[in-house]
C-alpha cells in the first residue's frame, strides 16, 4: 500500500526536446563550464521548439506520411488476402470511426489489421472492432490490448480475454465459441462508446482527431508542394523538414503582414482611403477583391488544377469512393494500378470458370448419349426377329452339324450387338468346329477311296473284276447302284474276297470322280438322318 501511496494515480505533462540544434550550438562554444552548459541546455533546448507554425507544419508532414504508410500497409494486407477491392470501404469505415469516437486512426488501423489477419473477413473485422472499442472504453484497457485478446480468443486461446476484466469467468470463456463470446460482450458493453460521446473527454478526443486529420491534409499538400514523393529517394527527412520550416516562416510572415495590412486598412486609414484601396483591390482582382479570400482561393485553384487532372484519369478506370478527392497523386496512381490488376485477375478467373463449366457440361452430355445408345442396342437385340427365329430353331431337335450352323448364324446376326472381338472369337470357334467336321468327312472319304483303290488295283483286283462281271450279269444292263453294307459283305463272302457293288451314274474316269460319287452318296445317306459313323465303320 505504501508503494501505491507513493505512486498514486498520475497524469504526466511531458515534452521531448530534440537536442540536435543544441549540439550544433555547443560546437560554437569553446570553453563552457558544466553548470553553464546545463543551464544552456535548459534554455537553448527551447530553440528546437521553434515557432508554433513551424512545429505544426512539421507535424503535418509527419502525420501525412505516416497516414499514407499505414494505409498502404493495410492495403497490402487486404490485397494479399484477396480483399484489395475493399480497401476504400475500410478506409471510410476507419475515418468515420475516428471522427465519431475520438480514437485516432493510428490506433484503429493496427487494431483492425490484427482482427482481419485472424478473422479473414472484412465485415467480421469491422463488427468485432466496434465491439472491441466498447470493451476498451468500458474496461479502461488499451484498444490494442483488447483486439489482441479478441484475436487470440478467435484462435482458441481465451486466457488474454479472461484478464480484461469483462465479467465472464474463465470456465465460461473456455466452453464458449468466439461468436457466443462476442454476442455476450456486445450485449454487456454494446453502446458504451455511444453513451460517452457527449462527455468532455471524448469531445476533446474527437476534436483532436479532427485536428489531426486537418494536419494530415495540410501535410499532404506540403508533400505535394515539395514533390517529396518524386525526390524521396534522394532527399533526407531533415532537409524536407528544413524546407517546410522556411515555408512556414514565410507563410507566417505573409499572414502576419496581411493581418497587419487589414488592421491598418480598417483602423488607421481614413474610411475613404481604405475604401478606395479596397475598391482598387477589387478592380484589380475582380471577384477576388477580398484579399484574404483571394489568397485562399488562389491556393485552392492551384490545388484543384493538380487534382482535377488526376481525378479525371481516375474516373476513366475507377469509380472511386468519397476519399478520391482528398488523395495525393501518388496514392491515386497506386489505387488505379491496383484496381486494374484486380479487374484483370477477376476477368481471368471468370473466363476460367466458364471454360471449366463448359467442359463439365460437354462431358455430362457425352455420358448421357453413350448410356442412351447402349440402352437402345439392348432393346433392339431383344426385339430382333432373325435372332428370335434362330433361337426358336435351336430349341428343336437337330443334329450336331445343324446346331453348329444355327449357332454360327446366330453369332453372325448378333455381330451388330456384340462387340467386334466377341463376334470374331465366337465365329472363329464355330468355323473351327465346322472345319474339323469337314476334315473328318474328307478323311473318311479318302479312306474309302484308298480302300477302293486297293480293291481294284490290289492283289484281289481279279476277284473284283469277276464280281463286277457277276454283278453286271445279275443285274443285266441296269446301271450300277451302291450296295448296302449287308449286300457288300454277302457278296464279299460269296466271292471269297472284297466285293463292293457300286452303282455310278455317268462315267467315272478318274479316282476323284469316284471319290466325289462316294461323298455324294454319303451326304445323301446322312441327310436322311443316318449315322455317318456307322457308314464309315462299314467302309
Amino acid at each position, binding site marked *: 500500500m505504501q508503494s*501505491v*501511496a*507513493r505512486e*498514486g*494515480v*498520475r*497524469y*504526466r*505533462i*511531458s*515534452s*521531448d*526536446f*530534440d*537536442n*540536435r*540544434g*543544441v549540439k*550544433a*550550438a555547443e560546437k*560554437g*562554444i*569553446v*570553453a*563552457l563550464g558544466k553548470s*553553464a552548459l546545463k*543551464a*544552456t*541546455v*535548459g*534554455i*537553448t*533546448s*527551447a*530553440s*528546437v*521548439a*521553434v*515557432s*508554433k507554425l*513551424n*512545429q505544426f507544419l512539421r507535424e503535418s508532414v509527419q502525420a501525412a506520411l505516416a497516414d499514407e504508410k499505414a494505409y498502404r500497409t493495410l492495403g497490402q494486407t487486404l490485397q494479399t488476402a484477396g480483399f484489395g477491392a475493399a480497401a476504400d470501404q475500410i478506409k471510410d469505415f476507419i475515418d468515420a470511426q475516428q471522427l465519431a469516437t475520438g480514437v485516432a486512426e493510428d490506433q484503429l488501423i493496427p487494431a483492425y489489421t490484427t482482427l482481419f489477419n485472424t478473422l479473414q473477413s472484412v465485415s467480421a473485422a469491422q463488427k468485432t472492432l466496434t465491439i472491441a472499442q466498447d470493451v476498451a*472504453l*468500458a*474496461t*479502461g484497457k488499451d484498444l490494442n490490448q483488447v483486439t489482441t485478446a479478441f484475436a487470440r480468443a478467435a484462435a482458441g486461446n481465451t486466457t488474454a480475454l479472461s484478464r480484461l*476484466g469483462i*465479467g465472464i469467468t474463465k470456465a465460461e470463456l473456455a466452453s464458449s465459441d468466439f461468436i457466443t463470446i462476442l454476442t455476450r460482450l456486445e450485449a454487456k458493453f454494446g453502446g*458504451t462508446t455511444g*453513451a*460517452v460521446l457527449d*462527455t*468532455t*473527454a471524448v469531445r*476533446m*478526443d474527437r476534436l*483532436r482527431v479532427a485536428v489531426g486529420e486537418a494536419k494530415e491534409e495540410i501535410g499532404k499538400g506540403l508533400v505535394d508542394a515539395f514533390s517529396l514523393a518524386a525526390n524521396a529517394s534522394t532527399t533526407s527527412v531533415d532537409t524536407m523538414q*528544413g524546407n517546410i*520550416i522556411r515555408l512556414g516562416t514565410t507563410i507566417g510572415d505573409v499572414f502576419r503582414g496581411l493581418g497587419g495590412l487589414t488592421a491598418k486598412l480598417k483602423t488607421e486609414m481614413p474610411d475613404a482611403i481604405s475604401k478606395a484601396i479596397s475598391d482598387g483591390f477589387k478592380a484589380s482582382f475582380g471577384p477576388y477583391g477580398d484579399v484574404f479570400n483571394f489568397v485562399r482561393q488562389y491556393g485552392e485553384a492551384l490545388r484543384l488544377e493538380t487534382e482535377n487532372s488526376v481525378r479525371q484519369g481516375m474516373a476513366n478506370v475507377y469509380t472511386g469512393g468519397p476519399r478520391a478527392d482528398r488523395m495525393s497523386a501518388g496514392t491515386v496512381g497506386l489505387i488505379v494500378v491496383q484496381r486494374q490488376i484486380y479487374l484483370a485477375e477477376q476477368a481471368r478467373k471468370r473466363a476460367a470458370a466458364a471454360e471449366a463449366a463448359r467442359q463439365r457440361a460437354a462431358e455430362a452430355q457425352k455420358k448421357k448419349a453413350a448410356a442412351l445408345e447402349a440402352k437402345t442396342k439392348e432393346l433392339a437385340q431383344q426385339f430382333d426377329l432373325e435372332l428370335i427365329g434362330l433361337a426358336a430353331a435351336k430349341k428343336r431337335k437337330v443334329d450336331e452339324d445343324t446346331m453348329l450352323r444355327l449357332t454360327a448364324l446366330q453369332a453372325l446376326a448378333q455381330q451388330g450387338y456384340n462387340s467386334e472381338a466377341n463376334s470374331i472369337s465366337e465365329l472363329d470357334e464355330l468355323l473351327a468346329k465346322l472345319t474339323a467336321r469337314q476334315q473328318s468327312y474328307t478323311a473318311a472319304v479318302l479312306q474309302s477311296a484308298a480302300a477302293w483303290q486297293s480293291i481294284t488295283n490290289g492283289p484281289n483286283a481279279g476277284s473284283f473284276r469277276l464280281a463286277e462281271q457277276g454283278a453286271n450279269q445279275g443285274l443285266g444292263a441296269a446301271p450300277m447302284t451302291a450296295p448296302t453294307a449287308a449286300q457288300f459283305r454277302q457278296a464279299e463272302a460269296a466271292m471269297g474276297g472284297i466285293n463292293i457293288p457300286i452303282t455310278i451314274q455317268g462315267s467315272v474316269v478318274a479316282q476323284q470322280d469316284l471319290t466325289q460319287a462316294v461323298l455324294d452318296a454319303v451326304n445323301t445317306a446322312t441327310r436322311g438322318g443316318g449315322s455317318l459313323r456307322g457308314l464309315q465303320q462299314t467302309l
Partner: protein
Amino acid sequence: MAGVKVTGVRQTLRALKQAQPDLEKQVRKSINESVREVVLTARGFIPDQPMTGWTADSWGHRGWDQRTAKMGIKRQNPSRRVNGRGYFYAIDVANLSAPGMIYELAGSKSDGRTRQGQQFIANIERTGLRRPLRRVVVRAGIEKGEKAKESILAALAKAQAVTQQRLDAVRG
C-alpha cells in the same frame, strides 16, 4: 538551423548568463500556472460525499473525507533526464490520498466481485464518469493537459526568442 546562433564565445556566455535568471524565472512561472490549473480542475472533480456509509468511522484512513481527497491531489516535482534524443521534461499531477485513489480507481478491475462491491461502484459512478481513470486527475489532465503543455512550449519558445534578440543585440 533554427535556434540560437552563436558568433562570439565571450559575448555569448555573458548574454546567456545574463539571460538565464529572468528567463528561467519566467519559464518556471508559466509552468507553475499551467500545472496549477490542472490541479485545481482535478480537485474540482472531488464530490462532497459520494455515498452514505463511506466514512472514517467504518473505513478508517480509507474513509471518505473531501478535504483529504482534495489535498491529496498535488503536483510532483518536475523531472529532467536525458534520453536518446536529448532531454525529457515531465511534470506529474498525482492523486495520492487513499480515499482519492479509491474514488478514482473503483471499478477499474471488475464490476465488483460481491453485491456490496457492485453497489459501491454503482454509487461512485453516479457522481463521476462511468468506468475508471477518467474521474479525477486523468480527467483533468485530458481536459487541461494539452493546454498546459502548449503553455509550457510557448513559454520556452518565448524564452528562445528573447535569447535570440539579446544575442543579436550583443553581436551588434
